[in-house]
């Protein structure tokens, strides 16, 4: 179980935003993506998740081994916390939702409609989803948005637990997650600015 990315170019809205990214992530490792707003973290994660094609380079990992969590949590307002989670569990082959609820301290809210959760509670539910996918590699986009300190702690613990079981995680975040052991990748160096260097890639040489 290993995620290998070799000189990957990713594009957004028809323009390459990051070029030549490469890293390898073994079981039990976590990688934190840093970089200023708009550098391309979300784009990179979506590419890893296979939601958009890479412009160049390759991403190799076991099939169906990556779970993605983006800016939106994929919750149905009119389903209860438990129903939301059960659904995703069933889709991924029916894991238990009990532990996930535990881990994110959602038990007291399990019967509540997602519509009636506060921003942070929603977010916690979104993270609980990861636990029921049973996928080894997590790709998380700013997972701790609007979480309070305590919940960030919960999250860190969950990630550690995941790593301990031989999982791995790629996390884009601006704030400190308290995951000292994780190594950090700053994306700024890979950023493609709108200058000449951008133009000579196989992607749009046809046009420029």
């Amino acid at each position, binding site marked *: 179980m290993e995620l290998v990315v070799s000189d990957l170019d990713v594009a957004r809205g028809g323009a390459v935003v990051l070029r030549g990214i490469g890293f390898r992530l073994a079981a039990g490792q976590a990688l934190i993506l840093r970089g200023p707003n708009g550098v391309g973290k979300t784009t990179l994660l979506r590419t890893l998740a296979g939601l958009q094609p890479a412009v160049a380079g390759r991403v190799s990992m076991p099939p169906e081994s990556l779970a993605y969590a983006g800016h939106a949590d994929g919750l149905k307002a009119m389903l209860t916390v438990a129903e939301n989670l059960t659904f995703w569990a*069933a889709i991924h082959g029916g894991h238990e939702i009990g532990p996930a609820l535990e881990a994110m301290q959602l038990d007291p809210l399990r019967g509540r409609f997602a519509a009636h959760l506060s921003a942070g509670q929603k977010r916690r539910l979104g993270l609980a989803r990861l636990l029921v996918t049973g996928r080894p590699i997590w790709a998380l986009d700013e997972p701790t948005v609007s979480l309070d300190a305590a919940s960030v702690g919960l999250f860190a613990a969950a990630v550690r637990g995941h790593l301990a079981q031989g999982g791995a995680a790629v996390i884009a975040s601006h704030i400190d997650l308290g995951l000292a052991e994780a190594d950090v990748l700053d994306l700024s160096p890979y950023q493609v600015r709108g200058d000449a260097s951008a133009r000579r890639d196989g992607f749009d040489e046809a046009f420029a």
Partner: protein
Amino acid sequence: MIALLIRDLRLAIRAGGGFGLGLAFFLLVAVLVPLGVGPEAATLARIAPGILWVGALLACLLSLDRLFALDYEDGSLDLLVTAPIPLEGVVATKAMAHWLVTGLPLTLIAPLLGLLLNLPGQGYGALVVSLLLGTPALSIIGAFGAALVVGVKRGGLLMSLLVLPMYVPTLIYGAEVVRRAGLGMDGSTPLALMAAITAGAWALLPFAAAAALRANLR
């Protein structure tokens, strides 16, 4: 799959899920047309089959527009695409769920509306049968349209434009079946053709729709 079907059905009957609204709209069309056209029974009887079918069509259409849009906006679609189930299956399942909460009820209530538009007596059986065989096609074709416009805000109307033309064959055959029955003629040919369209649509469109969704997500 089953999980998805259950979820969609559940969402449909929950508050704001809009179960039964398709029905209501169908009813409304059946009421509005006479109000516009005027009350002469003879005229109404002549146009009844066509109007009923057009009404069913529109009711399906309106309930379809957000079929994928909602999942897209709240991010579920991203997750479904990366989930270990074929996207084609997702499309088919959602279309099926839609038919269960719209097409089927429409079919069952249609005879009542036939009364309002005083449809000739022999027409009723044909009406039900034709709708039963025709509405599934409406659902899956509409699902394809919804897949094309997912991500477009205000997609609903654009979708109607894309989809309605594809509805035309079903509409023509369906209305024809009912009219013939009303005149006591044999409507088996158009019925067969319509059934064929339905079968074909269900066989092929899920793939087209899945492709459209993938394209829309990147």
